[in-house]
């Protein structure tokens, strides 16, 4: 009874205030609880200053619980107006379940490239249901002091890359490359999908693989394994049992010269490392080849179909798609790069260097993320194992390609 009265009181206050101020309050569901301060102090005030009629509340939950919490809130009808979208199948399921609105007609969607939008589209690309927010780029971060000390130029081709590794190894002061195979995912994410796009020509190969026109046994898909097989000797002693935090520490302590990286490392490395860092993109085979980078879409934001504030929410989403948001977001979180086609001026030198590759190279996303990891065996998980096996030299690149192809063909119709 008491609760009912309280509810009524609250509701009437809400009614009165909203009637009075004509305000809409938008609630954002997110798993990025690390970014709470950034939203409250920078992003939301900037938006509210421009749109006085709309209030925004950022309400994150713990990353590991996000999907489950969000699903139950959506079922119960108590989810916020705006939904932060995980890439690919998780969000696609929400759209197919009628929880996300089709945003293809949102004018600001024109600010994004097709690759940027691909993580939040139906398989045929006819509907886009989340505004892309940020991506992470793969490449190599290196210790500038170490390179200067040993007189090594930043490598651009594969031959130069391995020459540099040889030189570091010969000198012996530094471990040439900090990566381990214990946790497996680094080998696939920072190994195979980092250097791979240069072989399968980015989007061209990725889409052909999805259509079934290329196979994982084709040379462009097998060759990256052959290259990974050459990495083994340059990784530190006992790399087989080296974990991901081990590798991060090895590099930031200045004991390793090169770190196969994802750009999300930038802010952590900036605080940990006391030497100057630089970055180079995945080396190409021959000088002058077109370069391809993995510019992997990671975060988007969509509109809850059940939201009562559709208009206000669309205004907010249009603003998220604007260069202004991109510049606030990109600078506050160096390493999470805004996806809009308009270039953003970043202040962090390392982030700036990495994002600059977008102008020189073709962007693509990780080959296994869209559609291809829906079945059993799971191609992404298999790729982890295959990349580790390649680095250890446990199996030949051809055998690995064959194994992955057989696994994919066992459930994916275009490959049968």
């Amino acid at each position: 009874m008491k609760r009912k009265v309280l509810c009524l009181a609250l509701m009437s206050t809400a009614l009165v205030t909203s009637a009075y101020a004509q305000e809409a309050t938008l609630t954002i569901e997110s798993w990025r609880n690390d970014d709470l301060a950034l939203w409250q102090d920078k992003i939301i005030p900037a938006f509210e200053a421009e749109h006085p009629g709309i209030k925004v509340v950022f309400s994150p939950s713990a990353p590991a619980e996000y999907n489950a919490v969000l699903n139950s809130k959506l079922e119960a009808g108590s989810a916020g107006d705006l939904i932060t979208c995980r890439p690919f199948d998780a969000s696609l399921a929400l759209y197919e379940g009628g929880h996300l609105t089709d945003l293809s007609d949102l004018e600001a969607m024109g600010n994004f490239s097709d690759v940027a939008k691909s993580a939040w589209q139906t398989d045929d690309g006819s509907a886009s249901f989340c505004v892309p927010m940020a991506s992470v780029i793969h490449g190599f971060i290196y210790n500038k002091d170490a390179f200067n000390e040993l007189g090594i130029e930043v490598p651009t081709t594969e031959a130069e890359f391995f020459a540099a590794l040889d030189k570091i190894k010969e000198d012996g002061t530094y471990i040439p490359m900090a990566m381990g195979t214990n946790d497996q995912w680094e080998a696939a994410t920072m190994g195979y999908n980092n250097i791979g796009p240069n072989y399968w020509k980015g989007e061209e190969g990725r889409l052909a693989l999805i259509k079934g026109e290329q196979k994982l046994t084709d040379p462009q898909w097998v060759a990256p394994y052959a290259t990974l097989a050459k990495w083994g000797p340059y990784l530190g002693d006992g790399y087989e049992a080296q974990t991901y935090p081990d590798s991060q520490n090895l590099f930031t302590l200045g004991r390793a010269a090169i770190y196969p990286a994802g750009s999300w490392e930038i802010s952590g490395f900036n605080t940990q490392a006391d030497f100057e860092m630089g970055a180079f993109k995945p080396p190409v085979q021959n000088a002058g080849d077109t370069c391809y980078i993995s510019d992997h879409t990671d975060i988007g934001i969509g509109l809850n179909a059940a939201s009562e504030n559709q208009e206000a929410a669309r205004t907010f989403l249009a603003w998220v798609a604007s260069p202004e948001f991109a510049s606030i977001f990109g600078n506050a979180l160096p390493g999470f790069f805004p996806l809009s086609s308009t270039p953003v001026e970043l202040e962090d030198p390392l982030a700036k260097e990495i994002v600059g590759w977008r102008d020189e190279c073709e962007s693509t996303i990780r080959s296994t993320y869209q559609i291809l990891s829906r079945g059993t065996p799971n191609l992404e998980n298999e790729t982890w194992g295959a990349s580790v096996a390649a680095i250890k030299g446990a199996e030949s690149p051809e055998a690995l390609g064959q194994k992955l192809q057989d696994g994919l063909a066992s459930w994916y119709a275009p490959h049968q």
Partner: protein
Amino acid sequence: MQTRRIRWHIAVFLAPAVLVYTAVMIFPLFNTLRLALFTEVDQSRIYVGLQNFRTLFFDPIWSEQFWNALGNNFWFFLVHMLVQNPIGVALAAILSHPRLRFAALYRSAIFIPTILSFVIVGFAWKLILSPLWGIAPSMLDAIGLKSLFAPWLGKEEYALTTLALVSVWQFVGIPMMLIYAALLSIPEEILEAGEIDGITGASAFWKIKLPLILPSIGIISILTFVGNFNAFDLIYVSQGALAGPDFSTDILGTFMYRTFFGFQLQLGDPHMGSAIAGAMFAIILVGVCIYLFGIQTRMRRYQL
């Protein structure tokens, strides 16, 4: 003839335990077995009979993983039987020696790892064995055996044995305590009678004590069997759900977890996961039955 009164109080006293046990153990067990008979097609659950088990045992992709996990599980169990239990018995025999000093101290020290969390044990051993920061390589170096060191947890051929030995380290206290208790319960008179007949020292252990503690060893074996085939935590903590390197440490528990709850981009499949859980249940049931009917009933018992 007098009709027997129904003894209601038995039912009343049993009810709380039966209800709680049914709700948290028996119902979930049978519901899991039931879940294994279904599959999901287009977001609706349909009955498929034993199809999931057929997939698990005969589909090349699934069966390869299943037999690999089962084989690893048997190796894990074998290491425990061959290392943990004999060491446990030996420690108990030494501890029960009347002239050993500081017995209580050793007993506690050996038992303490058992009460530690898997997470602590997993991380501590991972650090000890780390090729980068671990003390294992430097200790071996100090005695000039650095060449014997290998990144054990990262090598397919050693990882499972290493983890099994870590688990042995953690749990060796349990057989030790059980055997210790059994040894203490052997009456002095029997040993003295043996002594008069000239059976002393080691032969007293082999000829008198060991036959008397055999039933305890049987119980320990079956506890080890059940514990090992339900194992999951240590592998998950130290090697992750993919049980690397290359599934060489994958046991039924991690295989079931990965399938049931999904991993990374792989979505969870509760039905196949239940099928694996069902297979685990069957394996443990068969193992326990073999022990109960095949071994325990034939074991000779002595009245003390």
